[in-house]
């Protein structure tokens, strides 16, 4: 379970201060797939990056699996991070390492013995469907394959939580779909909690159970994904959903016309 309490984050550039996160309170259940949606600049990226403290919040607390992350110092934080996987929009694979070495990296960091690493990496590659690509380098892979390597790398250390920072935003719709299927599959198989941020409504609709809407650094709406689609309250959610409504209305008009003729 993840509990975020009174999280604040501001950026200072020169003399101006920008509030990125303003009093964020969120609870995410174990095993959930939780989506955070918002327009560009709403603060969703800051929020997810605060969860593993790639960015330091100014105040507030983050608790993941009973551990208060915001209280941890250097070494403890590094140990805690091993149990929080993360995938990125730009994949962030190492070009100097092949697929196997990329996936093995977190295990080497954690100091596991070689035979264990070999076995575990092969297991992960099989899970993401890349068993035959072990010796390839990232530059030889497609976007979707790169993200699969990213997922294998994020999960190889058996984390409790997977953070997804716009992981499908650089992919085409079909590849996005296959990656979402994979995440859903992993969520079911490994009972893994997934927190993802996105600006794509279909990502939410495909795999998320609960969601939060973020607007100017504040959470303006939370609940089940069904609730967002059926009864959007916040400005952001209405803007997102209105696009779908527009097409639904248009379709019913067109179908109506067809029936009339």
């Amino acid at each position: 379970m993840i509990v975020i309490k009174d999280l604040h984050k501001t950026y200072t550039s020169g003399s101006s201060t920008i509030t990125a996160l303003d009093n964020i309170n969120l609870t995410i259940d174990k095993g959930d797939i939780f989506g955070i949606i918002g327009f560009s600049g709403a603060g969703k990226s800051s929020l997810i990056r605060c969860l593993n403290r790639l960015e330091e919040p100014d105040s507030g607390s983050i608790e993941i699996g009973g551990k208060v992350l915001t209280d941890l110092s250097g070494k403890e934080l590094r140990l805690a991070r091993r149990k929080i996987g993360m995938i990125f929009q730009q994949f962030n694979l190492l070009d100097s390492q092949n697929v196997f070495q990329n996936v093995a990296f977190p295990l080497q960091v954690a100091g596991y013995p070689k035979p264990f690493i070999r076995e575990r990496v092969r297991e992960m590659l099989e899970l993401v469907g890349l068993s035959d690509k072990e010796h390839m380098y990232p530059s030889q892979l497609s976007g979707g394959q790169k993200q699969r390597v990213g997922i294998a790398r994020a999960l190889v250390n058996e984390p409790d939580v997977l953070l997804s920072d716009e992981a499908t935003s650089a992919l085409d719709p079909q590849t996005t779909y296959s990656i979402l299927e994979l995440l859903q599959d992993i969520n079911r198989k490994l009972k893994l909690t997934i927190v993802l941020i996105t600006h794509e409504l279909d990502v939410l609709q495909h795999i998320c159970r609960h969601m939060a809407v973020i607007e100017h650094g504040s959470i303006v709406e939370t609940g089940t994904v069904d609730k967002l689609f059926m009864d959007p309250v916040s400005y952001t959610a209405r803007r997102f959903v209105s696009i779908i409504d527009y097409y639904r209305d248009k379709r019913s008009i067109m179908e109506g016309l067809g029936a009339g003729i």
Partner: protein
Amino acid sequence: MRDDLFELLWEGLLETLYMVAWSSVFALIIGILLGIILVVSEKGGILEAPIVGKIIGTAINGVRSLPFIILIVLLLPLSRLIVGTSLGPTAAIVALSIGASPFLGRIIENSLKEVSAGKIEAAKAMGATPLTIIFRVLIPEALPALVRGMTIAVIAITEFTAVAGAIGAGGLGSLAIRFGYQRFREDILIATVIVIILLVQIIQLSGDSVAKAILKKRHLG
């Protein structure tokens, strides 16, 4: 052309190679250290320490703003202290190493900065220590750029050895000045120039092919 030409050239070449090789090794060691410190200590770096970075940066700029020939003169006492003499190729290695390492430090800093912040973040998110990030992410990812930068530096050191030859370091530069200039031996002057040109070409070609081989292995070339 006289029959002492080849003997003189050979001797000069060996001395130059001796100076270039050792100065490059020392300058590389110091330069890599400086470059890494500059990158990791900057604001937002993996071992943020802006004051350390500023001090080193200022020192580097200071050494780099001196013309090399003046730096050699300034470092003569140090050469005497370390190798016991201020003359000859071994003494020159001290000045060459110190003169070239700030330059290398900047080149290495620039190469390491090309590694995308995202890759470093991914390693941080895995719980990697700063040392692991330096040796497993920064250096391997920047390797092709590092090799190219080092090639430039080794060529610069070759040029520096020729300059050092003017004040008693030996090598091809000294040959060109002592025989070619002071004794009007045009044959030696021209031959020296040709050998130095060839040497620089060989260094450049080797550096290029190493960088290319690395890129090819990673399927980036």
